[in-house]
């Protein structure tokens, strides 16, 4: 048993974090649009995380470490929903199609999943397809996954760019996507995945999202600690007050436990039924705790768009909604435990 990265793995993860910091630095002010440079990310190999895991070129436990780094840089959407999920799906296409799909992943992709596992799935209203999509950004390529008799089909929208409406202007990564079917066509890539085979991939993606959420929350905790060390009230830094210290210590504790649950679920030989859900439940709780503390301890400034804190709050709120609602995951975990224990 070992849950400690060796020096080489730790070095790789550190280096990956430094690369992300260079490609997509977090702005000090939250007003400016964040320059996520998708071609540069793809060029640095970040668009193929899922494919590498599928091909067993990258151990899952190291891949979740990379996803955690992505979360620290607010890149969970680009690197997990697309870089991981889409590339994993694409890795099962026919060879020609696979090459084509991987080439296309140098564009910033967004994926609409048609199988009901997202909270808002694409629906056809008259002759317009509408869906709520994580990762949608102007100029992105849009894919959808369809389950058909004979297998899954990954389709790419080729035609007029879809209309994007960011979630009430609040979330940087969630948008309603509207596609006019008359203005183009869906081009399909048959995949060798069967619907029933998707379980392990979904588990991996859920773990990757949990890892990214942990990273995002850890970064927010660091920013909050920095703030309470320097913000002076009553003549002393507010971080010297126990009410503040203890709140942040609780956040740290929950994050440490959550991250170790992620590692326990991603490690070689991990128990497959309960462990990923355990990691998910703990991560969501810990990240929400970090968001609450981050907002509270920044005081009024935490409610402004001047600091970058709100970017982390929104990334956490987006992140906790992936892979089923937190309550659904806890219910499923309870159900599985009862089945196993009784």
């Amino acid at each position, binding site marked *: *048993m070992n*849950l400690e990265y060796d020096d080489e793995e730790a070095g790789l993860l550190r280096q990956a974090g430094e690369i992300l910091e260079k490609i997509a630095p977090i702005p000090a002010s939250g007003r400016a649009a964040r320059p996520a440079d998708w071609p540069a990310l793809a060029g640095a190999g970040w668009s193929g995380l899922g494919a590498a895991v599928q091909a067993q070129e990258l151990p899952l436990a190291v891949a979740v470490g990379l996803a955690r780094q992505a979360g620290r840089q607010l890149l969970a959407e680009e690197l997990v929903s697309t870089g991981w999920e889409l590339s994993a799906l694409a890795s099962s296409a026919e060879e020609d199609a696979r090459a084509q799909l991987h080439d296309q992943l140098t564009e910033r992709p967004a994926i609409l999943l048609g199988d009901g596992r997202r909270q808002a799935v694409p629906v056809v209203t008259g002759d317009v397809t509408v869906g709520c999509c994580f990762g949608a950004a102007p100029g992105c390529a849009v894919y959808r996954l369809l389950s058909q008799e004979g297998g899954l089909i990954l389709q790419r929208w080729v035609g007029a760019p879809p209309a994007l409406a960011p979630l009430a202007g609040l979330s940087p990564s969630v948008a309603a996507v509207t596609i006019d079917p008359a203005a183009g066509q869906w081009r399909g890539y048959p995949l060798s995945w069967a619907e029933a085979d998707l379980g392990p991939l979904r588990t991996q993606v859920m773990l990757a999202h949990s890892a990214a959420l942990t990273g995002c929350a850890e970064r927010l905790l660091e920013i909050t600690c920095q703030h309470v*060390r320097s913000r002076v009230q009553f003549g002393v830094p507010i971080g010297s007050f126990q009410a503040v*210290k203890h709140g942040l210590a609780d956040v740290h504790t929950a994050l440490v436990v959550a991250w170790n*649950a992620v590692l*326990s679920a991603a490690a070689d030989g991990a128990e497959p039924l309960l462990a990923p859900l355990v990691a998910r439940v703990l991560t969501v709780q810990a990240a929400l705790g970090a968001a609450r503390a981050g907002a509270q301890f920044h005081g009024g400034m935490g409610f402004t768009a001047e600091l970058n804190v709100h970017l982390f709050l929104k990334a956490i709120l987006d992140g906790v909604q992936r892979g089923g609602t937190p309550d659904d995951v806890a219910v499923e*975990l*309870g159900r599985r435990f009862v089945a196993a*224990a009784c």
Partner: protein
Amino acid sequence: MLTLRDSPSQAAFRRSIRAWAGEHLPERLCWSTDRGRLLALDRLLSQHGLLAPGWPAEYGGRGLAPDLEFILNQELGQAGVQRAMAPSHQGVNNLGPALIRHGTAAQKRRYLPAILAADELWCQGFSETEAGSDLASVRMTARPDGGDFVVDGAKIWTSGAEHAHWIYLLVRTGTRQDRHRGLSFLVAPMTSPGIAVQPIEQITGGSDFCQVTFDGVRVPRQNLIGPAGQGWRVAMTLLSAERLSGRHRYGRFRRELAMLAGSLAGASPDDGAPIQPDGLRDLGRLVADIEGMAALARRIESVRAAGRDPGALPSVNKLWWPAAHQRMAETGLLRPVGRGADPGHWYRQWLATRPESIYGGAAQIQRNIIAERFLGLPR
């Protein structure tokens, strides 16, 4: 590589422990909370060299590497050996490692074998009425007098003092202004003239802990562990070991959780109703809490095995497991009343879990440690 799999040698060790448990562990001793049975279990483990397997061989242990010790605790825990409740626990898990690190050769020869045989049981004399979380405010004095120290004062919340043969003490040999630099670490037989033990009635109806008063008790100088004035260092070694002790509770907590799940599931067929989603949701959150504890234990062992600094992990551990256990007791109390469960059990558990977040360094102290030492927040 991160792995939960056993290496071939670890798997072989696990099989050997499982076989040993199957052959030697009497069912009546497993999961028992009866003191006599717990002591019998201690002695059985001792006879087979399994009571303190992590101690170096020269002190009677097996020098078991941390990974194998972890496997041993996992297997024995699942078989119903509750190390955290063992009468030998204070000696084996807390004092033993501190003696091995800070004791003289003569002290190790004198005390370790009897600890290892579970022949001499120990209790902890740290807390006082005015020195709880602020342990450095200890007032009990130890005044040099010839070849002895003369000890005066009182200790409180001393678990198992009624049954213990020995007590280890944090005492003041310097001035109160010296704070922790004026403290020393002594050991004394509980039969010493001038020691009186007063059991304290607890909210659970039991009296596991006591007040222990010292009135002119003479303790030989040779019972000083570490140099005079350096008792704080010895105590910190001991508390570090104590803060990791939640690792030994996972088996019991998991069993309690299965009991709670069983009561939910068992209630359903009788009344024809499915388990309510809110019950499953609460249960799922508790499963996450308890499995999180196991994940943390794995990480701690991995860090130990790699010879790295555990950093904040001991404090995180000490903050996490009592809170998880208290949430479980409260969920059990509120959930299954009238649905086939035993509400009395959870009522008692709610009360019984209160001290877990107090002893061994209260939750507030752990939060201070995490915030100041690891998050860099100002004092």
